[in-house]
C-alpha cells in the first residue's frame, strides 16, 4: 500500500473521531510538557552555567577548601598565582551581626575579598556606583545585600556590628557575579576587605570557613599542571575551572532535574498509556475494515502502516503541544524554586530539549501502542463473514506465535522505559528503582482493577434484583466491553499514588525534624564556641534558661602513627586515608548520651590523661585493638593516646561520635564547641542579645528559625514535586474522559433505550455517577494504599524513621478522586443525556 493511501486512511479515521483523539493528544502533551519543562530548565541552567563559567567563579580557575589553612599553603598559592598569572583569596563564613535598630542579632554570610582585584570576571554592581576599592577602602566598611538592609533595618551610612566591631555600611550589593559559587547560605550577605575580616576575629583555628583561591591565568598555560600543583598543597580541595561551569551548582541542578524528570516521566507514562488505550479501542472498532483489507490482499504490515502512522501523528501532536506547554512550565520554574536557589540568575529559554522532549513523547507513545499494533497480525480475515472463526484447534496450533507479539511488546515497553529512566537519571540503579517501583504499582493496580471487575460482575449476577437499579446499571457499566475500567484505574491510581506519596513524605520529613531533630537537646544552638565554661556561665545566669548548656568540643588533628607505625604504611580505606590530615576528634568527660560501650572501660570524669575511645566503625576502618597506641598532632602539638574503649553509636545519637578523647586531655589546644540549651521561647531574643554582646563570634541559632528554614525548603521541594505529580493525575483524568468519550455512542443508545423505558434524567445521571464514583474511589483507595506503602519504604530506608499508616489520607484520596472522576466523566459525556430517544433509535 502506498504511503499516501495509508496516510489517507489514517488521517480520515482520525478526523472521524476528533474528540476521542484530542483527549489522547492532550494526555501525551501533559507528560511531554512536564518532562520537557523540567529537563529544558535543567539544560538551560546548565548551558547558562557553562556560558558564564568565568563570571560564575569570577576567575579562570578556583580552588576551594574548607579546612584550616596554613600560612605556607597561602604563600604556595600566591607563588602559583604569580607563576601562572594572578591569584586572589576569598574567604567566606557565617557570623552573627547586630545593628543599632535591631537588638536581636541575625545570622549573615560574610565574604572577604581583595577589593582591588576582585572580581577577575563579571561585575559587582553596587549602589552607589563607585569602585569597590573606594567603598571598602579601610578595614571598617562593608557593602551588604538589600535583604540584609531590610531585615536588619539599616541603610548605607548606618553601622552594623560583626565580631564585636562596628562597620560602616558603605553601599548596597545589587549583583554579585560568583554568588552561586558561594553556596546556598543566608541571603543576608556582607562583603568586606580581608583586613576587615581580620578585625572581626571571626576566623580562628577550627572555624568553619571556606577559602576560595581565585586564579586569573595567562593565556596558553597548562591548566592540568596548575591543578595538580594545587592538589598537592591541600589534603582536600575542590578545583573547578572555566571549562566546567560551576560543578557544584551544576550537580545540584542535575540531581534536582533528574529527580523531577523521573516524576515527570510518570506523567508521560500515564499519558502514553492513554494513547495505547485509545488505539486499542480504536482498533477494536476497525476490526471489520482490517479484515476486509486483509481479505482483498493486504498484508499485516501494510495494515499496520496505517495505524503506526496514526500513532506517530498522535505522538507528534502531543509532543508539539507538550513542548509548547513545557516552555510555560520551564518559565514558571524559576518562580517555583526561587527559595531553593536563592537569587537565581536569569535562565534563558533553551531549545535543546525541545526535540528530545518530543522524541520521548513519541517513543513512549509508540512503545505503549506496540501491543495493540502487533495484534493487527492476529485479526483474522475471516471476520468478513461477520464472526470469529478462530477455533480451538487453530488456536492451539498458533498458540505461542499468537502470544509472542504480546510478550515482545511487553518486553519492549519494559526495556524501553527502563532505558528512558536510566537515560534521564544517568544511573542504572536509579533507573532500576524507578522501573521496579513503577512496575510494582502498575501490577498492584492491575490486580486490584481485575478484582474490581470480577467483583462487580459477581455482585450484579448474584444480587441482581436486590440491588437498586441505578447501582445495578452503574456496576454493570464498569465492566462493559470497551469501558477500559482497568486502564482508567491504573492511570488514575498512579497519579494519586505519586501526589500523595510526596505529600506524606513531606509531612514525614517535617515531623521527623520536629520530633527527633535537635529539639531534644535544646531550642537554642551555639556554634563556634571557644570559651565553653564562660559562655555556659553567662547563659545559665540568664532568665528563662531552663537547662544546663550542653556543649561538645572537637578539634581537627593529623593522625601520625599507630603503635609506632607511620600512618602512610597502614592499610586504610580511601576515605579514611584522604582524611588522615584532618581527623576530627571529639571530646567528652563521661560516656555521652546515645552511645553504648562495647569493649573496654570509659575514663573517669576528670581524667586528663590522653586516651582514646572509638566507634565500632572507626575500630574496623583503622584496624584498632584495645591497647593500641595512636599518635595525633593538633596545632603543632603531638600526643599519644592508648585505645581504652570502643562503643556503638545509636541511630539517633545527637552527635556523630567517632574518635573521642577526655575533655581535659586536650586543655590548652584550640577546641571548638557546639551545643544547645533550653530557653523559654519568650526569652530567646534576650539570651541571643547577651551572647552577641559578650561573645560576638559565637553563632547562635534559634530552633524555631531553623525549623522555619527547613520547612520552607521542604515545602518548596514538595510543591515542585506535587506540581509535576499533578500532571500524572491530570493525565489519568484525561484518560478517564477519553474512555468515556470512547463509549459515547454506546452510552447514547443506552440512554435512549432507558428513556423509552421510562427512566428519568436524574435516574440516568445517577447510574453514570455511580460508575464514575466507583472508578474514582477505587483508584483513590489503591493509590493511597500504595502511597502509604511507598512512604513507609522510603522513610524506613532513607529518612530512618517509622511512619504510621495514614488513614485520613485514604478517605481524602477516595473522596477527592471520586469527585475528580465525576467531573471528568461528566465533562466527557456532555449532551449525552439531552439526546432525544427517537432520533437515536431511528438512526439505527
Amino acid at each position, binding site marked *: 500500500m502506498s504511503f499516501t*493511501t495509508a496516510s489517507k486512511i489514517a488521517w480520515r479515521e482520525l478526523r472521524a473521531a476528533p474528540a476521542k483523539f484530542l483527549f489522547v493528544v492532550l494526555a501525551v502533551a501533559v507528560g511531554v510538557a512536564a518532562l520537557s519543562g523540567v529537563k529544558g530548565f535543567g539544560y538551560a541552567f546548565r548551558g547558562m552555567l557553562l556560558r558564564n563559567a568565568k563570571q560564575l567563579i569570577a576567575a579562570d580557575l578556583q580552588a576551594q577548601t574548607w579546612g584550616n589553612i596554613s600560612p605556607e599553603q597561602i604563600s604556595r598559592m600566591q607563588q602559583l598565582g604569580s607563576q601562572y598569572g594572578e591569584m586572589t583569596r576569598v574567604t567566606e563564613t557565617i557570623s552573627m551581626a547586630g545593628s543599632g535598630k535591631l537588638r536581636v542579632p541575625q545570622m549573615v554570610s560574610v565574604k572577604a575579598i581583595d577589593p582591588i582585584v576582585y572580581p577577575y570576571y563579571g561585575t559587582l554592581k553596587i549602589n552607589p556606583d563607585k569602585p569597590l576599592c573606594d567603598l571598602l577602602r579601610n578595614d571598617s566598611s562593608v557593602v551588604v545585600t538589600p535583604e540584609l538592609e531590610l531585615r536588619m533595618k539599616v541603610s548605607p551610612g548606618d553601622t552594623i556590628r560583626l565580631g564585636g566591631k562596628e562597620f560602616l555600611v558603605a553601599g548596597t550589593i545589587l549583583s554579585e557575579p560568583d554568588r552561586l559559587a558561594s553556596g546556598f547560605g543566608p541571603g543576608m550577605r556582607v562583603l568586606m576587605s580581608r583586613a576587615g575580616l581580620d578585625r572581626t576575629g571571626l576566623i580562628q583555628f577550627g572555624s568553619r570557613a571556606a577559602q576560595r583561591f581565585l586564579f586569573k591565568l595567562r593565556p596558553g598555560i597548562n591548566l592540568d599542571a596548575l591543578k595538580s600543583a594545587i592538589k598537592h598543597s591541600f589534603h582536600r580541595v575542590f578545583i573547578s575551572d572555566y571549562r566546567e561551569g560551576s560543578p557544584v551548582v551544576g550537580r545540584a541542578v542535575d540531581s534536582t532535574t533528574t529527580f523531577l524528570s523521573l516524576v515527570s516521566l510518570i506523567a508521560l507514562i500515564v499519558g502514553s498509556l492513554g494513547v495505547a488505550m485509545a488505539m486499542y479501542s480504536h482498533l477494536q472498532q476497525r476490526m471489520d475494515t482490517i479484515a476486509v483489507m486483509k481479505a482483498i*490482499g493486504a498484508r499485516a504490515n501494510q495494515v499496520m502502516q496505517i495505524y503506526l502512522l496514526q500513532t506517530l501523528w498522535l505522538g507528534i501532536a502531543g509532543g508539539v503541544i507538550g513542548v509548547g506547554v513545557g516552555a510555560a512550565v520551564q518559565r514558571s520554574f524559576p518562580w517555583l524554586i526561587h527559595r531553593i536557589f536563592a537569587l537565581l540568575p536569569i535562565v534563558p529559554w533553551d531549545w535543546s530539549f525541545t526535540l528530545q522532549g518530543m522524541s520521548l513523547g513519541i517513543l513512549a507513545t509508540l512503545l505503549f501502542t506496540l501491543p495493540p499494533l502487533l495484534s493487527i497480525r492476529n485479526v483474522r480475515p475471516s471476520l468478513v463473514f461477520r464472526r470469529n472463526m478462530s477455533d480451538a484447534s487453530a488456536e492451539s496450533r498458533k498458540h505461542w506465535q499468537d502470544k509472542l507479539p504480546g510478550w515482545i511488546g511487553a518486553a519492549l515497553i519494559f526495556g524501553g522505559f527502563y532505558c528512558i529512566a536510566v537515560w534521564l537519571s544517568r544511573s542504572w540503579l536509579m533507573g532500576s528503582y524507578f522501573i521496579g517501583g513503577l512496575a510494582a504499582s502498575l501490577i498492584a493496580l492491575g490486580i486490584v482493577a481485575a478484582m474490581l471487575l470480577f467483583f462487580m460482575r459477581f455482585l450484579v449476577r448474584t444480587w441482581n434484583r436486590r440491588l437498586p437499579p441505578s447501582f445495578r446499571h452503574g456496576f454493570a457499566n464498569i465492566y462493559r466491553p470497551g469501558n477500559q475500567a482497568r486502564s482508567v484505574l491504573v492511570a488514575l491510581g498512579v497519579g494519586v499514588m505519586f501526589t500523595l506519596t510526596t505529600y506524606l513524605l513531606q509531612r514525614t520529613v517535617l515531623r521527623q525534624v520536629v520530633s527527633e531533630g535537635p529539639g531534644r537537646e535544646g531550642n537554642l544552638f551555639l556554634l563556634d564556641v571557644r570559651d565553653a565554661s564562660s559562655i555556659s556561665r553567662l547563659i545559665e545566669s540568664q532568665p528563662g534558661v531552663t537547662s544546663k548548656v550542653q556543649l561538645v568540643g572537637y578539634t581537627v588533628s593529623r593522625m601520625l602513627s599507630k603503635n609506632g607505625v607511620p600512618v602512610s604504611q597502614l592499610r586504610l580505606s580511601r576515605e579514611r586515608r584522604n582524611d588522615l590530615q584532618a581527623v576530627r576528634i571529639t571530646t567528652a568527660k563521661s560516656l555521652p548520651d546515645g552511645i553504648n560501650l562495647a569493649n573496654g572501660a570509659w575514663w573517669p570524669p576528670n581524667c586528663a590523661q590522653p586516651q582514646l575511645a572509638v566507634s565500632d566503625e572507626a575500630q574496623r576502618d583503622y584496624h584498632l585493638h584495645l591497647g593500641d597506641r595512636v599518635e595525633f598532632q593538633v596545632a603543632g602539638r603531638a600526643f599519644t593516646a592508648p585505645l581504652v574503649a570502643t562503643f556503638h553509636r545509636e541511630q539517633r545519637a545527637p552527635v556523630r561520635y567517632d574518635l573521642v578523647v577526655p575533655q581535659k586531655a586536650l586543655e590548652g589546644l584550640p577546641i571548638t564547641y557546639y551545643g544547645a540549651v533550653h530557653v523559654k521561647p519568650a526569652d530567646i531574643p534576650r539570651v541571643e542579645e547577651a551572647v552577641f554582646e559578650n561573645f560576638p563570634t559565637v553563632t547562635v541559632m534559634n530552633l524555631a528559625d531553623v525549623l522555619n528554614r527547613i520547612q520552607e525548603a521542604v515545602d518548596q521541594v514538595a510543591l515542585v514535586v506535587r506540581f509535576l505529580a499533578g500532571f500524572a493525575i491530570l493525565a489519568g483524568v484525561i484518560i478517564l474522559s477519553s474512555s468515556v468519550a470512547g463509549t459515547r455512542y454506546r452510552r447514547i443508545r443506552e440512554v435512549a433505550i432507558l428513556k423509552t423505558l421510562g427512566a428519568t434524567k436524574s435516574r440516568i445521571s445517577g447510574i453514570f455517577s455511580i460508575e464514575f464514583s466507583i472508578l474514582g474511589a477505587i483508584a483513590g483507595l489503591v493509590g493511597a494504599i500504595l502511597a502509604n506503602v511507598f512512604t513507609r519504604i522510603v522513610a524506613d530506608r532513607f529518612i530512618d524513621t517509622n511512619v504510621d499508616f495514614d488513614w485520613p489520607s485514604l478517605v481524602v484520596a477516595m473522596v477527592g478522586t471520586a469527585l475528580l472522576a465525576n467531573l471528568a466523566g461528566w465533562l466527557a459525556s456532555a449532551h449525552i443525556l439531552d439526546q432525544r430517544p427517537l432520533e437515536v433509535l431511528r438512526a439505527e
Partner: protein
Amino acid sequence: MQAPAFQTGVIEVNQLWKVIENPPNRVEILRNITFSVPRGQFLAIMGASGSGKSTLLGLLAGLDTVTSGRIVLDKTDITNLREDNLARLRGRKIGFVFQSYQLVPTLTAEENILLPAELSGYQGDARRRAKDLLERVGLTNRAHHYPIQLSGGEQQRVALARAFVTQPPILMTDEPTGNLDSANGQHVLDLLLQLNREEETTLILVTHDRQLAEYADRILTLHDGRILRDEMAERRVSEPELPEPQVEA
C-alpha cells in the same frame, strides 16, 4: 496462461475438513469435501443457512485455516501458506464480493476500487481501469463519494468494481445480493454476470437462493457440511434462462 479446461482445475479441493473444537463441543462444519473447478467455470455453492457455504468460501480464499485436507489455487497449495503469502495470493488471484459490501469506510468509491491494485502492486494502469469499471457499473458520477453516502446497491456495485480491478482469475462472492431488495439485487447480479463474462473469470457464487444458483454452469449443494449434489447445467431438469450462452475457454 490458458490451461486446458477440465484437466487441472483452477481450484482443487481434496478431502477438506473443517472442525471446530471447543471442548466439550465439537462442530464438524465441513466434512470431507472434494471437488475441482475448471478455469472459467461459473460455480454456485448452494445450501441452507448454516450448511457451511461461507466457511467453505473462506477456506478457498485462505481466509481461514483448514483442519485437514488440501486446497490448490491456480497450482499453488494454499493449505500451508503463511498469512502474508496468502494475502499476496489473494491480492493477485481472487476478487471478492461480500454480502455486506465491506467497503473501507474512510476511502471514497474510487479509492476503494483502487485499493486492491495498490495492495498487490498491480502492473497495469489501475486508474484507467478503475475509471472504466466505475463507468461499467454506472457510478462515474459517484467516484468521490464515501460509502456512507451511497445506497446499498451502489455500495455493492463499487464492491463489484473493486473485485475486478486487478483482473483476478477467480472471483468469489458470498450472497452478493443478500442485503439488497429484488430490483437492486437483480441489477447487481446482471452486472456481476456481465463483468464475469467480459473478464473471463472463474466465478464462485455462494447463495442459498435456488433462483440465483440457476444462472451457474454448475451447482454444488451442501448439506450439513457435506456435498449433497454436484450438478452441471446440462443435466439440470429446468434450464435457467442465461442472458447469453456461456462460452468455455
